[in-house]
């Protein structure tokens, strides 16, 4: 056993991290969020690099790598608080790969993989990232019993949320429209669940880095606040939550590629840990920053807002806990 990325996978992740550190700075994210716009030039560049189609089969024009690679990219996207339709397009492609008919795959996977089209995926009755602004949207019944594919922007109403770094729609009655999807909807939901968990892992890692840096630097009572045990324990707890989310998410990404039997359990493990960590770690980051953390300028809040939306998306930690108990006792 080797519970780590291969050298190639590390390389993909490192390159992604460096690229986003240069091109997707927090300053740019703030500007984009305030203007309510996406950085479409960057999105085009990422699409050129093949990001949205990393896990799409080569036969459909994808990169033919796996969900481990895609999860690695999404983690870095979360770390950079990347704006744009990367997560939504990637999970839409995953959903169509699992649940779509041959003709649906034929029609959409290549275009999603190349970035020519954007996609979204979500559950009926819930908030859907980019749901109102994508070329193709897949809406699934929360119990995985059915799904529909809808095309055209405005497939669902837009929704202004507390997270202005991303656009959202709300799925209301979409299950009654669009094309039926004949494939494995439950697997589609599980895959998307793993992928959003990966983004949350990146979000947690970023605010933990920001916080550790801040509390080393910030002095009160003549010493760095990071020297107070209360602050140290807070940071230690943030690390435990982050690493727990990371380990379960990596396991789930591996299961998605290599052990589909265990995917349902692994996906719920990952999302339970990542949803919980996402909200706790980002809230903790605000607290450790003191008054600064409560300001618009400090940037920590974007991560808290993103984490709140991601945590609620495709099942809260409580919902996944309950699902796990049901899975384990059946």
């Amino acid at each position, binding site marked *: 056993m080797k519970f780590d990325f291969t050298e190639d996978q590390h390389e993909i992740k490192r390159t992604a991290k460096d690229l986003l550190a240069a091109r997707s700075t927090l300053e740019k994210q703030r500007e984009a969020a305030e203007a309510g716009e996406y950085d479409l030039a960057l999105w085009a560049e990422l699409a050129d690099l093949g990001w949205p189609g990393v896990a799409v089969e080569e036969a459909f024009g994808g990169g033919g790598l796996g969900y481990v690679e895609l999860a690695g990219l999404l983690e870095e996207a979360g770390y950079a608080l990347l704006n744009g339709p990367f997560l939504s397009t990637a999970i839409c492609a995953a959903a169509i790969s699992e649940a779509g008919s041959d003709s649906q795959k034929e029609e959409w996977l290549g275009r999603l993989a190349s970035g020519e089209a954007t996609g979204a995926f979500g559950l009926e009755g819930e908030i859907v990232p980019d749901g109102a602004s994508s070329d193709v949207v897949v809406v699934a019944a929360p119990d995985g019993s059915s799904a529909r594919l809808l095309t055209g922007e405005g497939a669902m109403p837009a*929704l202004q*949320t507390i997270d202005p770094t991303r656009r959202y729609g*709300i799925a209301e009655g979409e299950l009654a429209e669009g094309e039926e999807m004949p494939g494995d909807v439950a697997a589609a939901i599980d895959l998307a669940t793993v992928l959003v968990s990966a983004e949350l892992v990146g979000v947690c890692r970023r605010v933990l880095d920001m916080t550790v840096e801040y509390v080393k630097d910030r002095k009160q009572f003549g010493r760095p606040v990071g020297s107070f045990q209360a602050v140290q324990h807070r940071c230690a707890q943030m690390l435990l939550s982050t690493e727990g989310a990371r380990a379960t998410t990596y396991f789930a990404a591996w299961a998605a590629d290599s052990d589909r039997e265990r995917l349902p359990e692994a996906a719920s493990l990952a999302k339970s840990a990542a949803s919980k960590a996402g909200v706790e770690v980002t809230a903790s980051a605000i607290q450790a920053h*003191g008054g600064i953390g*409560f*300001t618009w300028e400090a940037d920590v809040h974007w991560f808290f807002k993103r984490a*709140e939306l991601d945590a609620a998306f495709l099942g809260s930690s409580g919902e996944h806990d309950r699902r796990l108990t049901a899975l384990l006792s059946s």
Partner: protein
Amino acid sequence: MDLTFSEEEIEFRDELRDWLGSNPPGEEPRSDQDAAFAFRKEWQNSLFEGGWAAVHWPREYGGRDASLMQSAIFFEEMGRANAPLPANGLGLILAGPTIIAWGSDQQKDRFLLPILSAEEIWCQGFSEPEAGSDLAAVKTKAVQDGDEWVVTGQKVWTSVAQYSKWCMLVARTDPEAAKHKGLSYFLMDMEQEAVQIRPLVQITGEAEFNELFLEEARIPADNMLGGEGDGWNVALTTLMNERSGLGFFLQTQLRRALDRLVEDAKENGQIDDPVVAQALGEMHVRTETLRLLAYRGLSIIEQHGQPGPEGSLTKWLWSETNQMLSQLAVGIRGAKSLTEGDPWAYDLLRSRGNSIEGGTTEILKNIVAERVLGLPRK
């Protein structure tokens, strides 16, 4: 032990309820900060005219000489009536009582009445960029020049400064003295060129607080509160009031929010989910505990004449519970609670500040450990 209200207390409550019945506060506008402030100013004026602006103040200064219990009843009734905080909350709860405790007769005559009527709004200029949790590290300096003090420095997180006529200002008057001993407390006129205000936007998108830049601002010597070098002790009086005075009001606000959430859970059927029922039950326990702790705190104040460090417990419990409640609402109400403009979405963000403002939870725990439990300091 007697946990029932006395006849006098019931009389007080009924009189207040009658008054509220014929002077309902109305609905605070949520959208626009200035409009909300104007609304709260009008509300305070209405309280003032009814003689209800500061029941806890002595009668000679325009209060009602209310007992602590009556004062608690007052805040509970305000909460129950869905009343907003009066515009001059910092004046009524912090500046007024501090002036009453430390002020000269002249200062009381000058400052108290306009606080009551909301004619003069107050802000609290304590925190600085380098002095947050470590308040005694204040660097803003005041130098005497004849019968004036000349003040230079920077303050930060100053809530409502943009509406304020006066500022409770802590500044260093003796740079040679030990940290806590070189401070003095001033009542500073905000309406002068030398005081520049820059709004600071917070995570909710509103600019509730501000930075203050003081460049040789002038304060008449008569506007020092307490003596030279008393600043730390005077500031403690203010902080004690901050951490306890609001307790009842905040507790009732929490109660109302919880009741609303229970209604929502009934409406959408979530109440039948045992997990939801348990979580709401826990919120009920926390909210009631907060109320009862606050009542217990009253007896402590009665014994010692002023709020003790135990006030830290209620502030800590309140901020934590408020944060938990808005998070719970996301689970119970679903997508709505994450939608821009929804009151719960606002609370989700605003409540993050609760464990920072008025002393962070970490600092409150330090106070409890050291001053209440007597654990050794580092």
